């Protein structure tokens, strides 16, 4: 198998995630798009690790585990913030959350 297959798949997921972050205005959907981006990064880490040989494959997997842990923390905090915004403004429309707009 070519390394490029995995890199292309990861790149596609990354770009779909970027589109979701840019085009969605529901905060929960934006968080889901961020998950897409993080998963594409994980595929890249594992694939490039395998490409570099067995020792580096282990290192890639360990870093992927760290990314998964950080993603779990990020979703927890993100949803807490979304809940707080919903409680204060009764809406999670990101285009309305412009309190700090200059």
């Amino acid at each position, binding site marked *: *198998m*070519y*390394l*490029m*297959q*995995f*890199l*292309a*798949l990861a*790149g596609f*997921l*990354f*770009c*779909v*995630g*970027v*589109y*979701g972050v*840019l*085009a*969605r*205005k*529901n*905060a*929960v*959907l934006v968080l*889901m798009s961020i*998950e*897409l981006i993080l*998963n594409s990064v*994980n*595929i890249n880490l*594992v*694939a490039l690790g*395998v*490409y570099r*040989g*067995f020792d580096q*494959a*282990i*290192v890639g*997997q*360990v870093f*992927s*585990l*760290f990314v998964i*842990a950080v993603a*779990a*923390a990020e*979703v*927890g*905090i993100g*949803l*807490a*913030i979304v*809940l*707080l915004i*919903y*409680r204060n403004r009764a809406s*999670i429309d990101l285009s309305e959350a412009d309190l700090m707009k200059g």
Partner: protein
Amino acid sequence: MVGENIAFGILALVMGLSAIRVVTTKNVVHAALYLVLVLAGVAGVFILLAAEFLAIVQILVYIGAIVVLFLFGIMLTRAPIGRVADLDNNQRGLGAVVALFLFGVLGWILYDGFGEARLPVREVARSGDVGVSIFSTFVIPFEVISVLLLAALVGAVVIARRD
């Protein structure tokens, strides 16, 4: 070798279509369910890359915990269940242009660097190997991650608490 490529093709097709549905569907709950398909596909790709421990962790943590958290978020924010037209902002065209441009640039650069690179025969990384690596070489990052998780837990409780 052929079987691997067929499996990869099926996974890539399902993941690509589901990922597009995640960012375009009009139904918030459907977006979460399509996200499950993408995450399961990522687990399948990990298995193709001989990272079985990571595949199990992916299913446990992402599908088991994070998607449930998303569903709770949808429920608690009383997001409209069912089709709603009002989930996208007015920058869809620009977003699509940016994403396509990024995909072009990424694809070109990656093809330039790794276009002909073939993966070596995969040696299955057993859970023990991964564990030894975490607790010897990467023990300090591991501790930092555990403190980060604790801080995130406390922070989420403090942020979401009613007072």
